[in-house]
């Protein structure tokens, strides 16, 4: 037998084998695609988490999975989903935003009870970021109303994080004014009188404080504060944790109507449940989110010292808090009305 013939035979044989291979392997289903519509500061976390989940899912089921991410302001993302962006899952900053999607019938009304911990696999809180050495001696909310202290925070009407910050301040003021709402709002007004620049988003406020060097204290997400310290290096900024703050619970949900249409419900649910596994919780902690898992939380106890935290329930839930404070003509607008 000559060399030429044998090579051709081998090539033909291997070609036939390659063609028949997919038919033979019964275990490999077609690859799945998921779209996770999230908010701004989770970009880095979900990039790592998606890789972690995809490896785990393929190992367990043999199915390849590709996860696409979309990030923007939380409210804007919720509106995009309502307007038809086909998200299989949403991972947003506020339950209020997911409620708005649920109100349009895309998500079951009981969504927040479907996963543990109010469907919030990681949490964060509102802290202060000050310049090295804390030159203005800012330790608690009461220091923010002092004359001559410049406070940087974002606009609660356009930023989810800023809404948490506003409510944390209001919660502090309510507690220290014996529950008197008018006096509490007066205190919050005092804080915003010290705000020279009102950015539209949390990241913008962080930039104003860190890059532009404006203000004495940044009031915002703990995860953003820790990230800024990572970025500018040690010895320039310090985190100050006030005597009390608020438990910010960024929630997640499957978008039922989209997942059912795409046939991705099973994998979408697994994706969200995987957020609660120790590996994912560890990743969240490294990305500066407070983990829910107690073992992981213990491991990162130094990074996330325990704090006295109120919750959104202190304000009667998001719908009430929103209607009272952040609608047009609400308590926040009154701060900026003359007189």
């Amino acid at each position: 037998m000559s060399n030429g013939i044998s090579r051709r035979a081998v090539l033909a044989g291997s070609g036939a084998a390659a063609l028949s291979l997919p038919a033979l392997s019964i275990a490999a289903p077609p690859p799945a695609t998921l779209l996770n519509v999230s908010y701004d500061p989770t970009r880095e976390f979900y990039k790592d988490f998606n890789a972690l989940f995809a490896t785990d899912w393929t190992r367990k089921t043999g199915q390849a999975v590709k996860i696409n991410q979309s990030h923007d302001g939380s409210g804007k993302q919720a509106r995009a989903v309502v307007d038809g962006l086909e998200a299989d899952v949403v991972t947003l900053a506020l339950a209020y935003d997911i409620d708005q999607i649920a109100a349009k019938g895309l998500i079951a009304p009981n969504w927040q009870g479907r996963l543990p911990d109010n469907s919030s696999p990681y949490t964060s809180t509102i802290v202060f970021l000050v310049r090295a050495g804390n030159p203005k001696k800012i330790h608690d909310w009461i220091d923010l109303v002092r004359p001559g202290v410049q406070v940087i925070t974002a606009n609660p009407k356009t930023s989810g994080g800023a809404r948490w910050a506003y409510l944390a301040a209001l919660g502090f003021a309510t507690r220290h004014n014996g529950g008197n709402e008018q006096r509490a709002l007066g205190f919050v007004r005092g804080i915003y009188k010290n705000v020279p620049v009102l950015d539209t988003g949390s990241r913008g406020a962080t930039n104003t404080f860190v890059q532009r060097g404006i203000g004495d204290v940044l009031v915002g997400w703990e995860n953003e504060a820790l990230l800024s310290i990572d970025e500018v290096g040690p010895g320039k900024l310090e985190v100050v944790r006030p005597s009390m703050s608020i438990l910010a619970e960024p929630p997640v949900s499957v978008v039922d109507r989209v997942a059912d249409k795409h046939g991705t419900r099973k994998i979408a649910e697994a994706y969200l449940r995987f957020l609660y596994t120790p590996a994912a919780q560890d990743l969240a902690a490294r990305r500066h989110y407070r983990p829910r898992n107690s073992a992981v939380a213990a491991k990162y106890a130094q990074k996330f010292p325990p704090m006295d935290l109120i919750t959104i329930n202190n304000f009667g839930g998001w719908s009430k808090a929103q209607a009272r404070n952040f609608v047009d003509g609400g308590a926040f607008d009154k701060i900026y009305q003359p007189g």
Partner: protein
Amino acid sequence: MTAAAIPASMDAPLAAPRTPWREPSAVPGFRLAFGFTVLYLSLIVALPLAALCARPWEHGLSGFADAIFAPRTLAALRLSFVAALLAALANVALGLLIAWVLTRYDFPGRRIADALVDLPFALPTAVAGIALATLYAPNGWIGEILTPIGIKVAFTPLGVFVALLAVGLPFVVRAVQPVLQDLDAACEEAAQTLGAGSATAALLTGFALAFARGAGEYGSVIFIAGNMPGLSEIAPLVIVSRLEGYDYAGAASVGVAMLIVSLGALMITNAVQVWLSRRGAR
């Protein structure tokens, strides 16, 4: 002309005088091109505007009025339009000068300078805004010089004006440049000519475009304005913040108000242009 003057069919006798609804042209393909123009303009411009105008009436006329005449909204509309007006006026003077230099003189780097004018068109507006904020912030290159002498630009209404200067400049320069190129040097020396009239018309076009664009500008302004309600908050930000509160009707109300003002400004400049060209023809 009345409807009765138009013959019902093509066979109608030509006895009655009729005005053709289009000028006869030697270039073929009018029907197709015209159909495409109407369709395209409808899809890209008219339909979205119609959708916008349909939106604010959820709470009736009073809801619309409340959304517009809230003090915070009025202050934002005033800031957006006044800053856009001042920036457009400044750009008319500066843009004319720049266009003049670029068309009339030959100097090393002229082509580069010419290309630079287009940069505000090409740059993502957010990039322009961040760059300006970095320059004019108290710790920026320019801010460092201005702050000690008591001039604050970034995070004040003055910052809005500066951002709109950058955004509007290419509109004026690019509108005037071709006209200046056509004018010959002899014409320039004679002050009152037809050429001067067409330059004025081009300047007006540039002014109107820069003004309308500036009033609606969001991306570059947001980073330098400071965004304080009632002080340095622009109208597009009021729209965005209403949307964040899921107040679609309130957001659309401000949009419609801005549309009306911008449309009015464009119509006035158009009317002035027509008047100018008639005067020039006389």
